[in-house]
């Protein structure tokens, strides 16, 4: 059996047998892996809380034919700041839910790993309301479904853009409008996020447009995944 080192974010875990878990991890070098953590559910496990979802860890893993086995784990970013805060925790979980849906098994996606680690660190240090929507938009762009935000997707008109329709792939003018209404402010914020001004967008003061951008990003992501996001429903309701 060969041994490899990697770092990764724990996406989810499944119970296995009496006291083990299968841990699904988005690693930097090996993509999404499934590895067994032996004895992790026992209170005296040497892994302790290091393999909980949202943990960013460095790993030593035995490669197996079907499942890998985790040999050692060290914490890179403790999930402490997220663990004790319901809003941050549920937002973190929504990042994991989306990443788990989008990433294939065992195919390196280093840009996705980098984005996830970055977004989790933002949630830990500065849990601003646009962290999750910005992540969703960036992820969609990385998946090749970048929405058209500059001109009407039907007629090419650059002014009076007042609607957003994911089925159409972007914004629409007053004449062609379908989908959801979008305010000028929400459009400006979304353009900032996707136009290389993400950090500036995160720092913008909270206005009604903030909630609008959150809504649009969730809608776009749900449209892309063709399913409702449970975790978003959870923190939006709180």
């Amino acid at each position: 059996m060969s041994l490899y080192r990697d770092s990764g974010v724990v996406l989810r875990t499944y119970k296995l047998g009496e006291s083990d878990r299968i841990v699904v991890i988005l690693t930097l070098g090996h993509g999404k892996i499934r590895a067994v953590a032996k004895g992790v559910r026992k209170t005296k496990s040497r892994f302790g809380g290091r393999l909980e979802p949202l943990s960013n860890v460095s790993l030593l893993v035995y490669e197996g034919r079907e499942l890998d086995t985790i040999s050692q784990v060290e914490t890179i970013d403790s999930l402490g700041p997220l663990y004790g805060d319901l809003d941050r925790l549920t937002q973190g979980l929504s990042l994991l839910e989306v990443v788990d849906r989008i990433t294939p098994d065992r195919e390196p996606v280093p840009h996705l790993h980098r984005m996830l680690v970055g977004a989790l660190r933002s949630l830990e240090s500065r849990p601003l309301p646009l962290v999750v929507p910005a992540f969703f938009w960036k992820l969609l762009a990385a998946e090749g479904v970048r929405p058209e935000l500059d001109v009407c997707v039907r007629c090419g008109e650059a002014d009076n853009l007042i609607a957003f329709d994911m089925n159409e792939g972007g914004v629409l003018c007053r004449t062609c409008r379908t989908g959801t209404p979008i305010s000028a402010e929400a459009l400006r914020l979304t353009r900032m996020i996707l136009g290389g001004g993400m950090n500036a967008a995160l720092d913008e003061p909270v206005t009604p447009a903030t909630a609008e951008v959150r809504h649009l990003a969730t809608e776009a992501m749900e449209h892309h995944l063709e399913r409702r996001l449970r975790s978003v429903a959870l923190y939006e309701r709180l």
Partner: protein
Amino acid sequence: MAAVYAQAVQTLIDELGRLPGIGPKSAQRITFHLLKLPTEDAERLANAIITAKARVRFCEQCFNVSEDELCSICADPRRDQTVLCVVEEARDIIAVERTGEFRGRYHVLMGAISPIDGVGPEQLKIRELLRRLGSDTVQEIILCTNPNVEGEATAMYLARLIKPLGLTVSRIASGLPVGGDLEYADELTLGRALEGRRIVD
């Protein structure tokens, strides 16, 4: 793919493989173990499953497993009715009971919030919990969900729901296992233990 085993054997492997924590390899191992058993042993197991399934149901009040409408704990008038311990699964009741530290009653959520697995608050027995809290007998809630991300999210969610009702809400402490070494503790556990420290008198 050609059938490797006789149909009856494959059916048994498939059924066992659907149980929690049993992978295809274990299902196969258990199947061949069962096939080697004397007939009466296998029948006793089959009957135990059928009888339990026929007799055991969930307590109408707390969702503990029970042979009657109310479980033995809910039906016991000596149990303190003012304190409710909220757990994820009925088997957690057994763990708490073994401590001998708790004399109140329970409420089983039948799971924990886990969006990635499609489990939100609606899938849990939360509405039923709130209905129980509607009567004035309950004054204190102890949130005894698992010390992991799902259990913690569930506890914090419940605390936010229940606190406005004016009840005392507490969460079991997380900390270091007795008998363990401090140097082996992970950052999260040790951090929680520090946060939950108490004055020594």
